[in-house]
């Protein structure tokens, strides 16, 4: 069982909880943790389920609802905003045919806002999974999305 293996490797003290949840989530195909998953982690760590769900529902990088295989995060804070982040949003919404907050029908992409990613000198910036893309233009966006579709 996934939760057991991860917990045994990382350790079962409460300070390991977030790290265990992040890794467990990464191993799931839809990038989220179900109530069964969270229950398993709670059991392994000897923590109340309410605490584990409280943590999972608090942090932005932990998801309790299914997401796409690739999560596209668009920064909308001021440094990116004044560099056209909302145009980026519009273009991505058109390219993927979904609104922000949604997941494509084929389960490939989720589109969501994020708070400042800390790459303001490259504004406007998006993050897809672990990679940052900055100094975005329409052409670049097209290339980036095509690249993910190919893999």
């Amino acid at each position, binding site marked *: 069982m996934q939760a057991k293996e991860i917990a045994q490797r990382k350790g079962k003290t409460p300070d390991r909880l977030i790290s265990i949840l992040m890794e467990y989530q990464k191993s799931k195909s839809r990038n989220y943790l179900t*109530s069964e998953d*969270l229950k398993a982690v709670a059991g392994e760590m000897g923590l*109340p*389920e*309410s*605490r*584990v*769900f*409280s943590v999972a*529902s*608090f942090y932005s990088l932990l998801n*309790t609802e299914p997401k796409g295989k690739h999560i596209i995060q668009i920064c909308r804070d001021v440094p990116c905003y004044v560099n056209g982040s909302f145009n980026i949003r519009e273009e991505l919404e058109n390219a993927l045919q979904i609104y922000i907050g949604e997941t494509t029908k084929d389960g490939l992409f989720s589109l969501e806002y994020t708070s400042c990613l800390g790459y303001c000198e490259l504004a406007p910036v998006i993050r897809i999974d672990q990679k940052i893309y900055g100094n975005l233009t329409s052409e670049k966006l097209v290339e980036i999305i095509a690249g993910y579709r190919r893999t």
Partner: protein
Amino acid sequence: MEMVKLKINNKDIEVEDGTLILDAAKEISVDIPTLCYHPDQEIKANCRVCVVEVEGQKTLQPACSTVVSDGMVVNTNTPMAREARKINVELLLANHDMSCTTCIRNGNCELQKITAALGIRETRFENILVEQEKDESSPALVRNQNKCIKCGRCIQICAKVQGLSILDYMGRGNGSEVKPAYGKYLNDVNCVACGQCSVVCPVAAITEKEDIERVWDAINDPRKHVIVQTAPAVRVSIGEEFGMEPGSIVTGKLVAALRALGFDEVFDTDFTADLTIIEEGHELLKRIKEGGTLPMLTSCSPGWINFIEQYYPELLPHVSSCKSPQQMFGALAKGYYPEKIGKKAEDIFSVSLMPCTAKKYEAQRSEMCLDGKYPDVDVVLTTRELGRMMGQAGIEFAQLEEEEYDAPFGISTGAAVIFGATGGVMEAALRTVYEVVTGKTLEALDFNAVRGLEGIKEASVDLDGMQVNVMVAHSLSKARQVMEMIKSGEASKYAFIEIMCCPGGCIGGGGQPYGVTDELRQRRIDAIYEADAKLPFRKSHENPAVNTLYDEYLKEPLGEQSHHLLHTHYFDRKS
């Protein structure tokens, strides 16, 4: 103890080092308004209502979390402090279901009180509540998200006192909500229905399920013979619903009130508490003699039974097979009593008056039913509900003349009334077991070692050379400790362990009047023992009505009739 000198509102005062501003202010008769604060709980400081101005600080400081220091200058009523208080309360109201007039806590709500006290005449903020449906899944409790002010008191008591952590904050920011994991219904998680959360809730976010109308319906149904039984704890608590001093013994008024409401018979759960002692005492002696599972655990607290079934089902063989006094009463009410008065089981409507919300769960358990058809107890009313019911009938409780219970099930002993306090069941059992084993008369009736608010208590009793070690625990966090002790073998020297789900025992139950603190629990407990001391009979086996019941019907403790009506079994409900 070191003293600290400070100024509050221009008055010089001296208090002990470590005192909170909140308590220091009381020295000059200033009661700074609070909301999330609870004297028995850890400081939360999240409502931000008790803010005061402290010279030298750039921001206002909460009085409930700030400790005084030498030379501190505090002003509690500056324009900024008063305005900030109002704004924060108005902000809470702007995310709250404001239908006060039809709310169950109308007139008895801490949010209402503080809104009135602060003189709030308008809510300047737009109401942004997104209404949700209530969670009415549990037979005992109702959760109403629309009333929650996110104070966190329920979270704390469930986590720290009961050790269950059913509730927590979920989500972040304005979307934060207090609820069970995954937002599940209360009935779908391992809640034990103890209602401690409902007792500390300042508003109507979590309340007992109201069953008053069902009782009115029965009382007004000419086909039904409606009987009521009253728990020991209620007689020292219900007075508080009518402004009487905590710890007032109001038994006679309670009986009069119930009669005035229209109950056909007013009986006393204490009667079956005595009966429970006979059955359970003999069960204990049998286990000791025959090498049965020890330590034996009491079984009258339904919150505790829910706990052991859901969390430690492997230890169920330790639990006494005796039903609780409430259920024994109901079983007799449907199985023995009807014939005595020339009626049938279906003519009897059995109501119980309890300090407890978990009793509502217990009453609807499918096995608590005569021949699978007639529930032992049809409706459980909590102390708080009875208070409201009397309000509906316009009964002026405090003015009532005292009346006596009906016979035969209104007769009881001091051993029964002490069931309401933690350690009471143990003490009652010891009073009887002593005399059964030694054949001697017990002179020293007060087993002080098992009394009081200490979480786990123990005593060792000498039954004429036979040493019996007993233990008493209350609140589920202590119960859990006891379970672990049994599992590890540490508890093997104990023969009998009393476990009460609620802190203080039944007088601290989930259905009791609001505003309970440890200090108040102690006053209710004192009243229980005072009531015991005044009664003519103080040992369960001296109850004449109980003895008649055995002579006429039950024949002997643990006999066939007892097993049929008065004993039960439990279920593994661990998920």
